């Protein structure tokens, strides 16, 4: 718990700082209103619920929060898993893009009964992301190319090829009727992730998948031999090698798992809410994963917790627009929190002064 303190303090300070930023540019009252709107939009509009008794005031925000939390959890896990062996996977964005595209293509072009079809789409996305993440791992092992550089390059290769070629070119939706459509073909209903709360809320099975992924990763990393080996590799490659651990295999496996998680994040986005590969993905989910992993301190459950918080805030962010605050405001909070987490030494000094005499 004590280890989590810097992260908690960073998030709290980021929220306070951003509140002042909003209060300075608008006025105090508007800032309070905007923050309340964000909060109700994130975790349910409870005052309105007690006033009107309409369940949608709770379920709809929770649905938006849940879908965003699921994607952030997946990309956050992607970065966190690579961190475990000491690799910095900046490439979650690219892996998410190829995974999302794979899910959209299999979802639209393949015919299969409901349960099988969704599974196929998820598998395709995980495989695409995993294979794409294999490239930097192999380049590192065979050619000594630093993974930070190769994953940055691969991000932009994926974004350029998918967003600026495939989705507007070969895979562009076939126009039906007179309305022009952007993005790829709609996925078939059998490929959609089932909704959990009926039609009022977009909450879908993706959140359950993210939950299982986080719990599963936690169990794997803490209770299995291989998970322990990964940790050993991350702490010291030389020591791990001396202990007879196959470091190269650890790198490859961890990167493939990281890519698969990012790909699944893309699949949840496509199969859960977008229902096709859209003209733009809306948010840099893969880059956000870096923030989730670091604020969550690389701990799968920490990633889950912080993704839930920011998934919620980002869902609520759309409501701040009414008060003249841009809907990307929660991303400012998130970025600032990451910056504060990065100042690790500062927190350590502060906490040490308080903690020990």
């Amino acid at each position: 718990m004590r280890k989590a303190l810097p992260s908690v303090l960073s998030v709290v300070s980021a929220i306070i700082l951003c509140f002042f930023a909003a209060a300075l540019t608008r006025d105090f009252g508007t800032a309070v209103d905007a923050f309340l709107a964000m909060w109700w939009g994130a975790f349910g509009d409870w005052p309105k619920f007690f006033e009107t008794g309409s369940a949608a005031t709770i379920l709809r925000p929770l649905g938006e929060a849940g879908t965003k939390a699921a994607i952030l959890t997946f990309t956050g896990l992607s970065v966190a898993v690579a961190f475990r062996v000491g690799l910095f996977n900046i490439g979650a964005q690219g892996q998410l893009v190829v995974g999302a595209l794979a899910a959209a293509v299999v979802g639209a072009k393949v015919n299969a009964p409901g349960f099988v079809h969704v599974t196929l789409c998820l598998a395709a996305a995980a495989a695409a992301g995993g294979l794409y993440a294999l490239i930097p791992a192999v380049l590192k092992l065979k050619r000594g190319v630093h993974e930070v550089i190769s994953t940055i390059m691969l991000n932009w290769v994926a974004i350029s090829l998918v967003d600026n070629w495939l989705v507007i070119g070969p895979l562009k939706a076939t126009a039906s009727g007179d309305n022009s459509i952007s993005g790829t073909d709609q996925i078939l209903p059998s490929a959609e992730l089932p909704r959990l709360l009926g039609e009022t809320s977009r909450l879908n099975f993706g959140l359950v998948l993210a939950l299982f992924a986080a719990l599963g990763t936690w169990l794997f990393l803490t209770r299995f031999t291989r998970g322990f080996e990964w940790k050993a590799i991350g702490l010291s490659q030389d020591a791990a090698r001396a202990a007879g651990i196959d470091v190269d295999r650890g790198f490859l496996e961890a990167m493939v798992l990281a890519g698969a998680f990012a790909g699944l994040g893309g699949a949840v986005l496509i199969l859960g809410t977008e229902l096709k590969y859209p003209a733009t993905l809306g948010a840099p989910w893969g880059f956000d994963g870096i923030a989730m992993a670091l604020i969550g301190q690389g701990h799968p459950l920490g990633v889950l917790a912080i993704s839930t918080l920011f998934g919620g805030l980002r869902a609520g962010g759309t409501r701040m627009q009414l008060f003249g605050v841009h809907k990307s405001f929660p991303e400012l909070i998130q970025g600032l929190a990451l910056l504060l987490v990065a100042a690790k030494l500062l927190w350590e000094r502060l906490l040490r002064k308080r903690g020990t005499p």
Partner: protein
Amino acid sequence: MILALINSILDAAPPLVFAALGATLSERAGVVNVGIEGMMRAGAFAAAVAALVMPTPLGVLVGMAAGAAVAGLHGWLTIRLRSDQVVSGMAINLVMLALGTFLLEAVFNSPSSTPAITQLPLWFGHSPLTWLAIVLPFIVHYAIRSTPWGLRLRAVGEKPQAVAAMGVRVAPLRFGAVLLSGALAGLGGAALSTATLDRFEHHMPSGLGFMAVAAMVFGRWTPLGAAGAAAFFAFGNALRIGLASSAPGLLEVVPKGVLLALPYALTLVVLSVQGAKNVAPAALGQPYDPELR
């Protein structure tokens, strides 16, 4: 046709050249700078806003100062607090992305762009920044190749302990390089909002900062190489835009997205063919801890 292409390269290259030079300076001093994108964004925004109330050339200087200020944050985090350099850079990118959008909405009540400003004047058909972008790589090359400061800068990126043993303080040297790097990235951003366009747009610099990092790697961490690669990538961009207007048929054969991906793919290929280990500065990415010898 060829003249038009050269002209569009001269217009498109400066932001990339400045940013690539900035990235090179910081990394030769041993500090990874993937925050170039965010520093460019700060420069582009600050320059466009400042130029609303003062002459545009002064606005460009404000843009450089803004880039340097953001770089100062990067330096404080990575040099003073010894934070992970990649983490700090990415955090800066995320903050600047959101902050730019927030300020656009909060100050100008517009989600898309700032009001128009007067662009930089043209000298011989191009903005002054174009001519600066041609000269500056040689100046930086000379500075880090042949001046005592440059020698120390390179040494601090290869073996900071040796520099410290020589009696030169590592931290101020690195901090200076990072600040200069940010100022150059800010200049690149300012070039976007005062020369390429006449305002700050919400998507700026839309990945150019990362392309500058690619150019630096492609140019093997040397000023002339980085600037050359930046010009080459700008040539690719110019070709892509030029083709769209002059020969749209060709874009059917070679799609736009493929041309966009090319700089990154080429950088990756070159890097994997030559192997990266002997090219990058030896102490790149390692915080300097005076207690470790």
